[in-house]
C-alpha cells in the first residue's frame, strides 16, 4: 500500500525506469541520427583493425644486406649464398647507381671487390641496413686451420633490426665454426664431446605469428579511443551548446541522465568487440579458445572504466578542445603502458608499477588469454577484479564531480 505522500512523489516524477528509458531513447536517437558519428564508432574501428593487423608485424626479415666479398673464391660465394638463404637477410637492391646494380645483378661475387668504405656509404644513404665483409683469404685461412674474422657493419637506427641481422650472421658462422671444430677433432681421432640440442615446442601459436596476439590487444585500444574521447567530447559539446542545462531542468535525476547517456556507448562498444572478433578470426586467424562469457564480462567492466574516464575528463574541461586534449593525455600513455605494443616486462620497474592502475592492461590480458590461451574465470579473476575496482572507483569519482559541476 502506497502512502499518499509517495503517490504524490511518483506523480510529480516518473519512475527511475521510465526516466532512464527516456534518456536512453533520446541518446540513441541523437547518436544514430548523425551518420558520420556512427561511421566513426562502427566502421572506423573495423578499418583500423584491418590496417593495424597487417601493419603491426614485428617479424624482422628481408633486412637489406650487402655482402662485400673480398675473398672472391667459390667457398666465400657459397657462404654468401647460404647466409642469405633463410630470408632474414636480403640482398640489397640498388636502383640508385647503375654500377652497383650490375655488380649485384651478376652471380655472387663475380669480380666483386667493393670496399668496406663503400659499404659504409651505402649504409649512410640507407640503401642497405647491414654489410657483411668476408675477408680476403677466408677460404685459405679456414682450410689451413687459421682463424678468420668476418666483420658485420650494422645500421643501428632500428636497434631491433640490427640485433636480428647481427644475430643471423653470428649464428651462421657460429654453426659453421662449431661444425668445423668437430670435424677437426674427428679427423684427429678424438671422440666428439656431448651435444645438447634444444627442441622448441611452441604452445598456442605454433607459427609464432604476430596478428593473432596483436588483434585482441588492438580491440582494447580502439575501444578506449572510441569510447573515452567520444564521451568526453560529447558531454563538453552539450555543455558548450547549453543543452545539458536544458535536460537538467527536466525532472530527470542527474545520475539517471548519466546512466542513460552511457547506455548507447555500452551497446556500441559490445557491437565493436563482436565485429573486431569476427574480423580477427576471419582475416587474421585469431583463435577463440576460451569461454566467451569471460570476454563479455571483461568488456562490460572495461567499458565502465573507459566511459568513466571520459566523463571525468569532460567535467574537468570547459571546451571540446580541452576535452579532446585531456582525452589524449590519458589515452596515449594508457596505450603505451598497456603491454599491447611492447611487453610490460621490458619496462623499467617504476613504469611497470604504473601499469597496475591501467585498465587497458587488464583488458588486453583478458582478451589475449581467453582467445589465445583458452583461459577462463579461474585464470583471469585477478584481472576482472582489478577492472571492477578501477571502474567502480572512476565512476564514483566522475559522478561526484559531475554532480558538483551542475549543482
Amino acid at each position: 500500500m502506497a502512502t499518499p505522500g509517495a503517490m504524490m512523489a511518483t506523480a510529480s516524477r516518473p519512475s527511475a525506469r521510465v526516466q532512464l528509458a527516456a534518456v536512453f531513447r533520446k541518446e540513441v536517437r541523437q547518436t544514430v541520427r548523425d551518420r558520420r558519428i556512427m561511421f566513426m564508432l562502427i566502421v572506423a574501428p573495423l578499418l583500423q583493425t584491418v590496417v593495424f593487423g597487417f601493419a603491426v608485424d614485428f617479424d624482422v626479415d628481408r633486412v637489406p644486406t650487402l655482402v662485400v666479398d673480398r675473398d672472391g673464391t667459390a667457398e666465400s660465394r657459397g657462404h654468401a649464398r647460404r647466409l642469405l638463404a633463410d630470408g632474414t637477410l636480403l640482398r640489397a637492391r640498388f636502383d640508385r647507381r647503375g654500377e652497383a646494380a650490375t655488380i649485384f645483378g651478376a652471380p655472387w661475387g663475380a669480380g666483386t671487390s667493393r670496399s668496406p668504405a663503400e659499404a659504409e656509404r651505402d649504409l649512410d644513404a640507407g640503401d642497405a641496413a647491414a654489410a657483411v665483409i668476408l675477408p680476403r683469404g677466408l677460404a685459405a685461412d679456414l682450410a689451413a686451420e687459421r682463424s678468420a674474422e668476418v666483420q658485420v657493419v650494422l645500421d643501428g637506427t632500428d636497434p631491433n633490426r640490427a640485433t636480428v641481422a647481427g644475430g643471423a650472421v653470428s649464428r651462421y658462422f657460429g654453426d659453421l665454426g662449431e661444425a668445423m671444430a668437430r670435424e677437426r677433432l674427428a679427423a684427429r681421432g678424438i671422440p666428439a664431446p656431448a651435444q645438447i640440442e634444444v627442441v622448441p615446442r611452441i604452445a598456442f601459436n605454433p607459427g609464432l605469428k604476430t596478428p593473432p596476439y596483436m588483434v585482441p590487444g588492438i580491440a582494447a585500444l580502439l575501444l578506449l579511443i572510441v569510447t573515452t574521447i567520444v564521451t568526453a567530447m560529447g558531454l563538453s559539446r552539450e555543455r558548450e551548446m547549453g543543452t545539458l542545462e536544458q535536460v537538467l531542468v527536466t525532472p530527470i535525476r542527474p545520475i539517471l541522465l548519466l546512466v542513460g547517456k552511457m547506455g548507447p556507448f555500452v551497446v556500441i562498444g559490445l557491437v565493436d568487440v563482436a565485429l573486431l572478433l569476427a574480423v580477427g578470426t576471419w582475416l587474421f586467424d585469431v583463435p577463440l579458445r576460451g569461454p566467451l562469457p569471460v570476454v563479455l564480462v571483461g568488456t562490460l567492466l572495461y567499458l565502465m572504466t573507459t566511459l568513466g574516464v571520459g566523463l571525468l575528463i569532460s567535467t574537468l574541461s570547459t571546451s571540446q578542445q580541452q576535452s579532446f586534449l585531456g582525452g589524449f593525455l590519458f589515452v596515449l600513455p594508457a596505450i603505451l603502458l598497456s603491454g599491447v605494443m611492447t611487453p610490460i616486462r621490458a619496462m623499467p620497474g617504476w613504469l611497470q608499477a604504473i601499469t597496475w592502475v591501467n585498465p587497458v592492461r587488464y583488458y588486453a590480458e583478458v582478451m589475449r588469454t581467453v582467445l589465445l590461451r583458452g583461459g577462463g574465470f579461474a585464470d583471469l579473476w585477478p584481472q576482472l577484479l582489478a577492472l571492477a575496482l578501477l571502474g567502480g572507483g572512476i565512476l564514483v569519482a566522475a559522478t561526484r564531480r559531475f554532480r558538483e559541476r551542475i549543482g
Partner: protein
Amino acid sequence: MKGVLARSLVRIGAMAGKETLHIRRDPRTLYLALVMPVLMLFLFGYGVSFDLERIPLAVADLDRTEASRALVSAVVASRELEEVARVAPQDGPRLFREDTAVAVLDIPEGYGRDIAQGRRTKVQLVVDGADAVVANQVLAKVDALVRSETRRLAGPALADRSPPIEVRLWTRYNPTGRSALFMVPGLAAYLLAISAVLLTALTVAGEWERGSMEQLFASPVGRLEIVLGKLLPYLVLGMIELQLVLAFGAFAFDVPLRGSALLLFTIGFFFLVGMLGQGLLISVIAKNQLVATQAGALSALLPSMLLSGMVFPLENMPLPLQLLSRVVPARYLVHALRGILLKGNGFAVLWPDLVAQVAFAILIIALATARFQRRLA
C-alpha cells in the same frame, strides 16, 4: 601591387592576432599542447623497449642429476632468465594462462647419462607462443645459453681452441641499441601530426559550429587570408613543439644532432604546413568538432604511427600498405629526422623527403582552399 600585398599581410596579421588571442585566452589548451609532447617523449623513451630481462622460466627437471642442475644454473646465470618454479612438464599451458612463466625448460630423464657418455641429447623448451616477440627472444636466448653450456661441457677439446671463425659486429649510429634513439624521431613526427592536424581541425570546426565563421566572411578579410591567418599561430606552436621535443630528446636521452639543423627545420616546417592543411581540409568537410577529431585521428594519427616506420618496419608490410605509406607525409619526416639526427645525412641523401613534404603541403593547401571557397559560394 605592393600596397595590395602589404594590406593583405596586415589582414593576415590581424587574423593571426585574433587566433593567438584565442589560444592565449585558453591557457589549458596551450599547456596540454606543450606538456603532452614532453610527457609522451618521456614515457616513450623509457617505456618502449623490447629487450626483456629476467624472463620468468619454469623448470621441469626429470633427470635430477648434477648435469641437469648445471644446465639449469647455466641458463639462469645471466639473469636474462629467472627460474620462477619447479613444475611438471605438462604444467606449461596453465602457467602461461596465469602469466607466471613464459617458458618451461623440460629436461628429460637420462640427460645426465647421455652427457656422461658423450652422446647427443635433447632438452625441450615449451614456450608460450601467444606473444611472438617474447617467444622469439626466449628461444634465441635459451638456444645461445645452451650452446655455451655445450661448449663448456666439451671442455678442453673444443673450448681451448680459438673459434675458427669470429664474427665482429660493428653497429653504427646507435652502438648501444637504445630504443630512445629509435623512437624520438618517430615520436616527433607523431606529436606534430597530433597537434597540427587536430588543433587546427578543432579550432576551425569550432568556428563553423558556433557560426562565427560567417561573421568572419562578412569582414573585409579574404578567404585565403583567413586560412593563412588561422594557420600561422599553429605553425608557430608546431615549430615550438618540434624544438621542445628535440631539445628534450637531446637532454634526457642524448639524442644526437649529427646533420644540419637548418635542413631539419626546413623539412619540419613543410611537414607542419602539410599537416595544418590537412586539418583545415578536415574541418571544412566536417564542420563539427566531434567528427573532425575522429576524422583527424583516422587520417593523420593512425597513419603517422603505423605507416611511417616510426615503430613498425615498413619493409615487412604487405605491398598495398607499403604503397599507402608513400602518401603518408610522416613517413618522409621520420626518415629525414633519423637521417639528420642519427646518421648525419645531408641534402644529397634527403632531398626526396623534402620534395615529398613540399609537394604534399602545396597539394593539400590548394585542396583545402578550393574546398573552403566552394563551401561559401
